[in-house]
């Protein structure tokens, strides 16, 4: 791992920003810097999965990655960052919680997914419109914290099937109180135990 990836993995935000600015001033390719940041995020994900890092560390890493992205991404121009896929995400109707959803989006972005974020309290119809407007989206991510929102998840899954999108789109769900029983109840394809698990599942579903 290069210096940038290591600093990100160690959550050394100030050192990292200084290093990024130094490398840019020395003419290092912004895409190479961006890819090294992604490498650092992969390491953060691995450390989370192995129990060395916790949710607060993921949030910190996501914030640092975003900060670097604000510097580097505008410099990428037409260069291809090699997006691995597109995901439509939102918190389902009746639920306004967004922390879990936003953390998953931050990690998906870092893993080079393009994410269409529909926000919170999203009607099933709005998910369908977004999937139709983004024919290259192969994954729908549904989030909820409330058990009372399971029905909205189920309704959304049914709407996807009714719209004939279920051949193209796989549905992953996540949130506070979820397990396989909620997958069975809603008809979704998979559930993520945590934000890193959601990224792993998204990769598998592509």
């Amino acid at each position, binding site marked *: 791992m290069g210096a940038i990836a290591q600093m990100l993995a160690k*959550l050394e*935000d100030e050192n990292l920003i200084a290093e990024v600015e130094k490398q840019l001033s020395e003419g290092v390719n912004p895409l190479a810097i961006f890819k090294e940041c992604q490498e650092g995020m992969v390491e953060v994900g691995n450390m989370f999965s192995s129990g060395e*890092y*916790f*949710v*607060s*560390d993921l*949030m*910190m890493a996501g*914030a640092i990655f975003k900060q670097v992205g604000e510097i580097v991404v505008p410099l990428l121009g037409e260069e291809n960052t090699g997006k691995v896929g597109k995901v439509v995400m939102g918190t389902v109707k*009746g*639920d*306004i*919680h*967004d*922390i879990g959803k*936003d953390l998953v989006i931050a990690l998906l972005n870092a893993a080079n997914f393009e994410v269409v974020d529909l926000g919170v309290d999203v009607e099933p119809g709005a998910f369908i419109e977004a999937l139709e407007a983004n024919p290259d989206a192969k994954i729908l991510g549904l989030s909820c914290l*409330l*058990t*009372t929102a*399971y*029905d909205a998840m189920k309704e959304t899954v049914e709407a996807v099937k009714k719209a004939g999108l279920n051949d193209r789109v796989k549905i992953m769900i996540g949130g506070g*109180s*979820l*397990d396989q*029983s*909620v997958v*069975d*109840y809603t008809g979704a394809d998979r559930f993520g135990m945590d934000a890193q698990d959601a990224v792993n599942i998204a990769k598998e579903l592509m």
Partner: protein
Amino acid sequence: MMPSKLYLERLEKIKKTIALENDKPMTSYLGPATPAAYMGVTMAEYVNDLDKNLDVALAYLNAINERTSVDSLNSGALGVKVNVLLAGLWLSRVKMPGRELPENSLWQVEEKKVMQDEDYDLVIEKGYDALVQKIFPQIIDMNELQEFTIYMEKNGANNVKKIIDNDYPIINSGAAAPPFEMLCGARSMTHFFMDCYKKPDKVRAAIEAMLPRMIENMIGAVKGANGMGTWVGGWRGASAMVAPKIWDEFVWPPMYKMGMACIENGIVPTLHLDQNWDRDIARFREFPAKSIIINTDGLTDLRNARKVLGDHAAFMGDVPPQLLSTGTPQQVKNYVKNLIDDIGPQGLFISSGCDAPANAKFENMVAMFEAANEWS
């Protein structure tokens, strides 16, 4: 009027369970939103009409109790304004059904930064009260707060009497959130977690400035209600949520001090722990033996906790909310039976993991308590 024989028997059983001297598991109810749908009342009516809230909740409890014994109430927060209660715990605005949310929606906490960067200096220099005075008008209608205060002065004691008259002892008469949780609510989780990394000195000083008054308020509230215990809650400070360096400095020491202050004042702290606390569960051994209740939500491994803590503490929990919402009565019974078989009945309160959800099936609630009461 003296409490009934049944009430006194249940009260005695609570004490024995905390001391791990009980033979059979105790049952304890926690479900502030659960009665509304089953009793045919809109959520808006249920949470905004406090007299109705108490009556409907008691009718629901009695409907379960006709089938199988509900030995105790985890929380006495019936007939209270949930948005006022939660705003006071977390310094966050709570959106309410029939107001900001549809009639039958559950109330929901708004995740928004209401404590600004400079407010750290306010609380450090002028204390907890100054912070609350600045934040409260942003998160609650002060007229509603005043109306609720007047309601409680007029009706609070009578409402507790009604609960006692229905033979339900209340384990927790109060609810307190340690400073970590309150700052997390006021700053919003993302900002506050960043604060813990980026400005730990400010976080440390704010916690030190807040804690004495928060302890004073917590003890005063329970003594004022002549209560047995209080929640000392942990939600976002869970081991699975924060790095060890944050937990060791900002989560555990204030939580421990609050718990110890309860114990020193003859109050039983119920450590209400949402999310997963496995990493740090051994730290709860620092409390005196048989003086606390550890109340978990299904994500902390109680089997491991019993191995680690032995007979040091009573447990309360931990039927997962999704099981109560989507499972069958037999699945719920299996879960409860397996839990009791595995960790034993001593020092065990069978309850929902955190609140029973608003859409918990009535038959599942009955099954949860039946499994505990029928266990042998």
